[in-house]
């Protein structure tokens, strides 16, 4: 065990830091759930890609830097410290990208990955349907192979970023007689295809961060199938594996929130101290963010040495999503009567963007597999409790 960074790792950190200092937007961008903000974030993806900082874990041949997980953690630390923008193409870069590298044909990789990398094509996800939420195997949208095209019909929902995205990826039932996990196929669909209707769904903040997608005889080239026909479930599980795994939420994000929370507490000490529970919550935020960081580093080091990620990784999503909620709840307590005010309200002095974070934190225990589903997975696969 050696908990110090190597000279190379230190140098890498310096390189990330100085590039971000020179290139990160000085002014915060608009929310990427607005039309203007979406385009600003798309431009930022292009800037990142030009500096080869967009996908540091991708292979060099694909515009990445082939970083290992420790370098990725260092990159993320500098990224969040610099307050750089959120990643509008997260669905593409972190979820679909690695899956494409594993299951895609050479033609698909060459066609799709470069445009994903430079933000030219932003990706939305199409997992859930009105009757297939936590129970994803209940998917009913169909894709029927006719010649070299799939004809897609049905409906997807809760499609994050779908309002202004260019493509979506998802699972469709290609075998009409199949049930559950069988007969599903993973297909990539251009969102400007004829027959597609996107209906924005305003989120808790009123902005259309996700959407419903309706498919009415949408024709998609068979070239856009990822993996074999009928193999959609295993391809999707790889994607969900990445999503639930290490890379969806790096510790840096939460450590920076915890640091800002400590500052908020100190700035408002007099009012904050009237509720003894607040101090406890702030300490807890710091410690939990620290635990999350330590645990992630320990896992990353193990994986770097050839270890395998096990069922214990399903604890990850519950931990960070509850941490995020708890930290923002503490901030709301500190802000007191100001907590409900929108940032531009005349009397909203010093509220920062805590309210936005608080709203978003409500989604954490729900998306990417509800925490109840995660608890079942932990009990059955990690602890070995009986399914029936």
């Amino acid at each position, binding site marked *: 065990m050696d908990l110090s960074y190597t000279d190379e790792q230190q140098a890498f950190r310096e390189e990330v830091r100085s590039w971000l200092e020179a290139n990160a937007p000085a002014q915060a961008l608009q929310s990427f759930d607005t039309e203007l903000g979406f385009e600003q974030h798309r431009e930022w993806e292009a800037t990142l890609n030009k500096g080869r900082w967009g996908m540091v874990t991708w292979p060099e041949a694909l515009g990445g830097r082939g970083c290992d997980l420790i370098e990725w953690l260092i990159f993320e630390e500098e990224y969040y410290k610099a307050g750089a923008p959120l990643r509008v193409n997260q669905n593409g870069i972190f979820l679909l990208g690695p899956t494409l590298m594993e299951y895609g044909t050479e033609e698909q990789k060459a066609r799709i990955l470069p445009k994903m990398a430079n933000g030219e094509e932003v990706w939305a996800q199409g997992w859930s349907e009105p009757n297939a939420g936590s129970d994803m195997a209940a998917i009913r949208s169909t894709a029927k192979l006719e010649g070299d095209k799939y004809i897609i019909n049905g409906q997807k929902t809760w499609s994050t970023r779908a309002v202004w995205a260019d493509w979506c990826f998802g699972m469709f039932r290609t075998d009409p007689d199949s049930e559950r996990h069988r007969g599903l196929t993973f297909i990539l669909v251009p969102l400007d295809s004829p027959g597609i209707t996107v209906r924005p769904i305003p989120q808790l903040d009123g902005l259309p961060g996700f959407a419903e997608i309706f498919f009415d005889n949408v024709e998609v080239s068979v070239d856009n199938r990822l993996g074999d026909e009928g193999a959609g479930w295993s391809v999707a599980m790889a994607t969900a594996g990445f999503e639930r795994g290490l890379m969806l939420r790096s510790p840096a994000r939460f450590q*920076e929130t915890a640091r800002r929370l*400590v500052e908020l507490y100190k700035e408002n000490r007099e009012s904050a101290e009237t509720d003894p529970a607040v101090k406890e919550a702030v*300490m807890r935020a710091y410690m939990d963010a620290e635990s999350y960081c330590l645990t992630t580093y320990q896992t990353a080091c193990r994986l770097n040495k050839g270890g395998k990620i096990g069922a214990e990784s399903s604890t990850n999503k519950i931990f960070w999503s509850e941490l995020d909620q708890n930290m923002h709840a503490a901030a709301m307590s500190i802000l007191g009567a100001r907590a409900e005010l929108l940032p531009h309200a005349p009397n909203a002095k010093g509220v920062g963007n805590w309210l936005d974070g608080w709203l978003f934190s409500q989604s954490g225990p729900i998306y990417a597999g509800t925490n109840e589903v995660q608890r079942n997975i*932990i009990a059955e696969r990690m602890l070995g*409790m009986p399914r029936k």
Partner: protein
Amino acid sequence: MDFTFTEDQLLFQDSVRDFLVNEITPERIRASWESESGRDSALWSQLAELGLTGMTVPEAYGGLGMSELDFVLLAQECGYVALPEPLVHSALVAVPLLVDIGGELADQWLPKVATGEAKVVVGLEQNLLVEDAHVADLLLLQQGDSLVAATADAVSLIHNESVDPSRKLFAVSVAGEAVVVANGDQAQSLIQSSLDRGALGAAAQALGLAQRMIDLSVQYTSDRKQFGQAIGAFQAVKHHMANVAVCLEYAKAPVHRAAYSIACKESVASHAVSQAKLNACEAANLAAKNCIQVHGAMGYTWEVDLHIYMKKAWAMANSWGDAGFHKTRVANHIFTDGAALGAGATFA
């Protein structure tokens, strides 16, 4: 950056676990409750033969010269079986303190500790009472601003019974001759590092105790049937256990970090230990709470083994600094102006 244990460290953990699980059965622990001292000198000899009593004793004194980091995984295993013998206390607290004191005292006692001939315990004011004073040959005791050494014949003991029948606690007063081994700042520094090592030992044992309570509960809820199925198949039961698993999973790395911090004398050692102790004892306390619940009325009995581990977990939470003590240390760290917090600060 390498936050992993070596193959050797992991193999040693495995072999010690095998030994302890085979030897320190719940039956043997219950038998120890019936004996007068509650301690088993034959077992101590076995631990010595395995090299465990001498693990942290420097090689010059006949030990293996291992560090806190080498021992922490073994301390987890001692927790897993709720080992009644004061092995963690000796290896993590008494031996390093003797090494730090050095001189004649170390020359005289460390070789005997390594061979298992002698036991040494440490009594700090942070702990109300002294564990295992009745089997100690030498006691290192905090007395105000001083640290004194007294042999068994120089102290008088008053036994205080614990809810955990395995724990043997004593009020100790020095009746005969005691040697002052340190005063003032030097004593404070020795007391401080002993407290940190004791807290590390309690934290590591709490991890093992939590895991044992999980294992017992998974077994019980898989066997016990109600409404025509194993009760472990009910989501309400699963979620109790999943919550413990999450809490325990995120307590491990902080304990390993604390062990590294102490072994490498990092400046963050004190609050790293405090965080580790808080995390691990929270996991063990949650394990106790949820595991007794999923055992139903059986969990409330003397007969079912759960309470062997549950009661020790409760005791660990308030030994070597209670939650208030450790929270204060963490708070002092994070609320200090200029404290290094946030992304990138953890290993800086």
